[in-house]
């Protein structure tokens, strides 16, 4: 899981795009159990990878990131109050930089 390029600045880059707060994630997995998309990486692993700044690993999750419904079912149960859907939206914006 930690084979990618470690980028401690990734969170800062994402915070320049908006209110990114994945560092609050405690990796409890409640969100993944609730998520209607049933994708094992969504959203717990995506939040962890982004919070750790593993840029290549985050890029490899492109399909999971664009599959998210932004429905916030996970958010209302997150014990750490992570703004999961907003974080996913910011990751999309970051992934698309220079592509549009």
């Amino acid at each position, binding site marked *: 899981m930690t084979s990618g390029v470690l980028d401690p600045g990734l969170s800062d880059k994402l915070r320049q795009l908006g209110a990114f707060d994945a560092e609050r994630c405690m990796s409890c997995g409640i969100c993944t159990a609730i998520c209607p998309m049933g994708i094992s990486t969504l959203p717990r692993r995506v939040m962890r990878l982004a919070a750790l700044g593993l840029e290549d690993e985050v890029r490899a999750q492109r399909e999971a990131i664009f*599959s998210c*419904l*932004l*429905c916030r*079912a996970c958010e209302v149960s997150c014990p750490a109050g992570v703004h999961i859907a907003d974080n996913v939206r910011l990751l*999309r914006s970051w992934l*698309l930089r220079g592509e*549009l």
Partner: protein
Amino acid sequence: MPLSTRDVVGVLADNLRLRGSVLPISSRRATRWARDLSLPRGGETVLYTGTMYQLIPYIERLVRLEELLGDSRLARLSGLARRANRLVNAVAVVARPRPAEREEYDRVPANVARLLQLAGVEFGYLYEDDLYAGALAYDLGADEAVAAHARRIAGVFRAHGVREAITIDPHTTNMLRSVFPRLVEGYDVRVRSYLEVLADSSLPVRRKVGRGVVIHDSCVYARAEHVIEAPRHLLEAAGLDVGEPERSRAATWCCGGPAESLYPSKALAVASKRVEQLGEVAADCVTMCPICLVNLRKAANGRMSFRDISEYLLEASLGSDEARGPSPAPGTAPAAAPLARTW
């Protein structure tokens, strides 16, 4: 092969930049619903449709075309499609719904206008300046195009002296109420869903509808905008027996629509699960979002009926069937018709 996120979001962002909507239709088509209503132009309070309901029949046509082409051919063509769409508005060329298809969705903004009039609310309409609010492009991360579009709409509000916008769908409500204040400095337009406005008014009820229905909450209304009690209050006042599905209110289960433009089979799986949950309560379901309406109908494939909340409220308020379009019994058209991918 999945569609290219870059090309799909690129087409949507290009359209927003060049033509003011992710799926541009002519202003004549977008405002047709209001042509016999003599609504005043502009004013301090406006009914803002964001053209969401009016776009649905065009989306349905595009989806049928996509289904004919198939995902892998479409994926190969998507880069070319983006380049062509920059020159010619592809929606106007390929998406041509029949009048009956348009009328079904045009009826919703007309219903809402009549309900507000019956409740004694004074409002105007911006006609060709009533623009799509940019929700899909925002959700997919096309931030620069959306920020410019938000400034354009804020400029329209300023030019018309608009102080309050009454919205008719959750996505436009969310953009205008919760997103635009973050994107446009000094933006201070008051935004309320028509359901909130009607729940605070004295909407007359001339005939109780007297029917059992199951309610489907929109994720955006329930979890982002906290519009939960207003629709229940209005439906109960209209005489409906409102059943709650397994997941409802702030715990509602998504219709799958937001994934439809990129991953239609995943979206269908989510919608099918929701149809099962709803079907356990009643055969008739009330929706309050055009995206939920088309996705759930498509997944149900005629096993249940889905109608917009405005149809029930107007039926009770007028005391007649005058406002209602065809009310499909479960298992009959239009619920069984091929329906939309919700771009």
